[in-house]
């Protein structure tokens, strides 16, 4: 890319007619013209590089932001919110002086190209976002979606992704406590690799990405800058893979978790000594992003000497240095008299640190190379004033036919024997089967604070050893539901994650999301997106759980075929004392099983319709968020007051799936009776929302019933924890051994 002579600001002003490769860098013609208008001249090559990455879909949210505004506009009043949307990650007050930051991001396209490194660097990126807020990372979660479980390419992608998540997260010493693995042919060629992380800090330790105070130094620290991932963000994340442009493919970055572990420790040590005024991690768009965001959020300008950036490859051009997405780098703003101490800490941890610039009292971001000015921009125009698109959207014409194809009309099992066969088929299907083969490749014990980890309903981490304060996190997102109705589907994802947090005894506080969709240039996809965002914003408003931040991943499609709209929702909760947590596993024989909530004939998008009939049609289950809130309150009270010993949320697969999981985890069976007013099939397979099963010790039955009665939550006694089989009276019985064989055997048979 190097041109002679160097394309300085002066040179650019003098040569207005030079053609720059704006299209190759992913800019549209009108976007390029806007850059020229902003600058009052043509951009230099370096400026063009910066604008092109920062104005990419991935960095600028140009197609999504008109919709995302609703998260702010409809945000419920919440005292818990300390830092909201727009920073590296949102921050929530969890009490006792502690704050928690959490976020979910996508690394979908890179993980398809190079599964191991794509997934690994996804973990690395989200963890740096957490550190940049001032927090110690305490856990990660990984919601994953793959193509059909038996497709040969799934066997290429999945093991690499899982090994990459494990390889990176395990080496960082972060317990992996939650997430999901879902298979569906719609993700063939477009796997979703979302990575979430949680961090904990004291309120006073919150740090922000801003550069203030003229004369303060800008320090780049961490790995050297190399040629990896150049244009990764703008190109990989913003365009579908196009065989005609193979040169865009090998742009996946390579992770070094050891370097990141050092970065965590040395950053936290610098925070502890209060050496840092502002901080930003280098992720997508690398230095372009970090410098322009820091400068844009601060009060002054910034001057950077690019020659001082430590390089892994000395032949890199200034444009490449600005665009490089080399991993494990961060940028800190430090007062001049604290620079020496900051550098000392970096040296202690063997981390390379270099002063590359300083905050100025102007309002320009100026970047120099070999003594000449190659960038002179208003940083806001780069970081925050990118283009905004009002993409056209329209309800797809096939939506009516899809919804009319009612799953409730599918043939149902007619005998106990047939029910039994379908139960076995369900619990052994790839989506419903145990994911132990995958999760056992993740460390969930490290740090010694893990209270609950997958396959529990939510992951739970102890925050304070003395008081037992803890936080819980659950991620959910059902693309099948969202395909049938994106508004409802997004609310169902929210409801499920919210319910999962409450099921473990924690109070849901706040939401983060990762919105995975197809191409925004397709009006049908844009409609799905608009509906899902509207549904989620409305739902969060009603439940009182604000969206603290999140991520949008678009262009998840191959040719004309988009993935199911897949809004993944993470809900964070708090529990006063982790000793009160409620596990999924049945604990004691003789305890009474209660079904909480109402069961209706709701099979649209259900696991049963997929597994037994390979069908997707009808309407997803109805959402009643007031009911979800009531159910959550009951589950939390029952846990706090010791009225229940185990609980499991009901979602995909319905009641029978939940009972089988609780039974297998506890090593104790259950005898079930179909309650009055329900048929066995609906009882077992319906996916009505707002439900959970709980195991109540006999001594607590009256008190528990009284509480549900007084609060108006339907609670139906459906059986007892007992024996070594799951039996539905008058219908069938399945031994735990048989259930375990199909439930735990499926994934290893497909992937090991």
């Amino acid at each position, binding site marked *: 890319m190097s041109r002679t002579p160097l394309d300085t600001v002066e040179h650019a002003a003098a040569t207005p007619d030079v053609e720059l490769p704006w299209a190759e860098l992913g800019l549209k013609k009108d976007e390029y013209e806007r850059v020229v208008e902003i600058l009052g001249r043509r951009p230099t090559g370096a400026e063009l590089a910066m604008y092109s990455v920062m104005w990419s879909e991935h960095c600028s949210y140009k197609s999504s932001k008109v919709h995302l505004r609703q998260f702010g506009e409809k945000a419920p009043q919440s005292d818990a919110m300390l830092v909201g949307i727009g920073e590296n990650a949102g921050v929530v007050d969890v009490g006792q002086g502690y704050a928690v930051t959490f976020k979910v991001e996508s690394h979908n396209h890179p993980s398809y190209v190079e599964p191991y490194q794509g997934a690994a660097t996804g973990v690395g990126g989200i963890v740096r976002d957490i550190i940049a807020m001032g927090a110690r990372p305490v856990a990660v979660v990984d919601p994953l979606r793959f193509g059909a479980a038996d497709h040969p390419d799934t066997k290429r992608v999945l093991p690499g992704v899982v090994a990459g998540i494990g390889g990176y997260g395990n*080496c960082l*010493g972060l317990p992996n406590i939650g997430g999901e693995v879902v298979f569906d042919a719609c993700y063939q060629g477009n796997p979703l690799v979302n990575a979430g992380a949680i961090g904990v800090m004291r309120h006073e330790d919150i740090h922000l990405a801003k550069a203030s105070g003229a004369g303060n130094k800008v320090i780049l620290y961490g790995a050297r800058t190399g040629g990896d991932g150049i244009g990764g963000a703008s190109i990989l994340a913003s365009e579908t893979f196009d065989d005609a442009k193979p040169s865009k493919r090998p742009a996946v970055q390579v992770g070094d978790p050891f370097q990141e572990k050092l970065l965590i420790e040395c950053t936290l040590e610098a925070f502890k000594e209060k050496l840092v005024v502002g901080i930003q991690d280098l992720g997508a768009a690398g230095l372009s992003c970090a410098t322009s965001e820091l400068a844009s959020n601060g009060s002054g300008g910034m001057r950077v000497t690019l020659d001082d950036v430590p390089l892994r490859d000395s032949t890199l051009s200034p444009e490449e240095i600005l665009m490089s997405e080399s991993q494990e780098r961060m940028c800190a703003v430090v007062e001049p008299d604290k620079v020496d101490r900051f550098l000392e800490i970096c040296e202690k941890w063997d981390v390379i640190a270099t002063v590359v610039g300083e905050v100025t009292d102007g309002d320009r971001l100026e970047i120099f190379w070999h003594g000449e000015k190659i960038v002179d921009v208003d940083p806001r125009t780069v970081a925050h004033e990118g283009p905004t698109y009002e993409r056209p959207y329209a309800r797809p014409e096939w939506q009516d036919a899809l919804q009319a194809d009612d799953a409730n009309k599918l043939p149902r099992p007619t005998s106990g024997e047939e029910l039994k066969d379908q139960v076995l088929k369900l619990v052994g299907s790839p989506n419903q089967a145990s994911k132990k083969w995958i999760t056992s490749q993740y460390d969930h014990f*490290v740090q010694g604070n893990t209270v609950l980890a997958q396959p529990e309903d939510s992951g739970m981490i102890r925050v304070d*050893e003395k008081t037992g304060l803890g936080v819980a996190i659950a991620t959910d997102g059902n693309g099948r539901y969202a395909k049938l109705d994106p508004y409802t589907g997004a609310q169902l994802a929210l409801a499920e994650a919210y319910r999962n947090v409450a099921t473990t005894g924690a109070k849901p506080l706040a939401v983060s999301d990762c919105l995975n969709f197809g191409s925004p240039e397709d009006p049908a996809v844009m409609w799905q997106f608009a509906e899902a965002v509207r549904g989620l914003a409305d739902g969060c408003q009603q439940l009182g759980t604000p969206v603290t931040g999140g991520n949008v991943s678009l262009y998840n499609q191959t040719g004309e075929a988009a993935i199911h709209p897949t809004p993944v929702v993470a809900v964070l909760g708090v529990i006063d004392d982790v000793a009160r947590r409620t596990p999924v596993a049945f604990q004691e024989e003789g305890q009474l099983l209660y079904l909480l909530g109402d069961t209706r004939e709701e099979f649209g998008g259900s696991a049963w319709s997929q597994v037994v009939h390979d069908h997707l049609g009808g309407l997803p289950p109805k959402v009643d968020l007031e009911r979800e809130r009531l159910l959550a309150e009951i589950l939390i009270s029952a846990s706090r007051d010791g009225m229940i010993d185990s609980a499991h949320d009901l979602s995909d697969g319905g009641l029978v799936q939940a009972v089988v999981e609780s039974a297998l985890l506890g090593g104790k069976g259950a005898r079930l009776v179909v309650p009055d007013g329900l048929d066995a099939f609906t009882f077992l397979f319906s996916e009505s929302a707002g439900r959970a099963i709980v195991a109540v010790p006999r001594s607590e039955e009256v008190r528990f019933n009284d509480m549900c009665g007084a609060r108006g939550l339907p609670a139906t006694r459906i059986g007892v924890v007992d024996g070594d089989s799951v039996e539905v009276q008058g219908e069938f019985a399945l031994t735990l051994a048989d259930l375990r064989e199909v439930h735990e055997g499926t994934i290893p048979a497909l992937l090991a």
Partner: protein
Amino acid sequence: MTARIGVVTFPGSLDDRDTQRAIRIAGAEPVALWHKDKDLKQVDAVVLCGGFSYGDYLRAGAIARFSPVMDSLIEQAKAGLPVLGICNGFQILTEAHLLPGAMLGNDHLHFICRDQKLRVENAETSWTGDYRAGQEIHIPLKNMDGRYVADQYTLDKLEAEGRVAFRYLDFNPNGSLNDIAGITNEAGNVVGLMPHPEHAVEPLIGTGRTDGLPFFTSILKKLVNA
């Protein structure tokens, strides 16, 4: 008067704070040691904790073994200082030749994290006195390179001298020879094992068992009674 037990932090150590907590729960005083510092701060015993020291680059434990702190540690371990190596710490001890044998990648080539059943084979070491020989315990296991190997002569010698301290039961998670999970030196002061006792010291955390606590109470008793 309680015992002071050092925990070394190498770049890439992960379970240093967890190990310090386990030492505290057992009633001893944890002392942080730093890999660049030769000074062992006159501790009564040392734990080399789990993690990926130096990213496990080159070979697990191979670089850490040359840290300044190891010079003092090797010298004092040979003179009788009790040393426990957990996971990466075990790997470092074999690299430092304080324990025989070596660790290879798991035979199934995956990282594995599970609640592992073990049998205590030797309850006479500095770190196992609070167990009974033959006792069956559950301790979390999590590693990539946990396959213990040694030549036949060494294996025979370990077995004959009762120096296999822990053995995997029911399931060999990594292909270790003779199902070996942990071993001791002749003197019984240096013990290494792949599973993580520091992650089994509190009833609520991890697997909910406290089967790992006796490691830390054993050494405390030994030191305080000494």
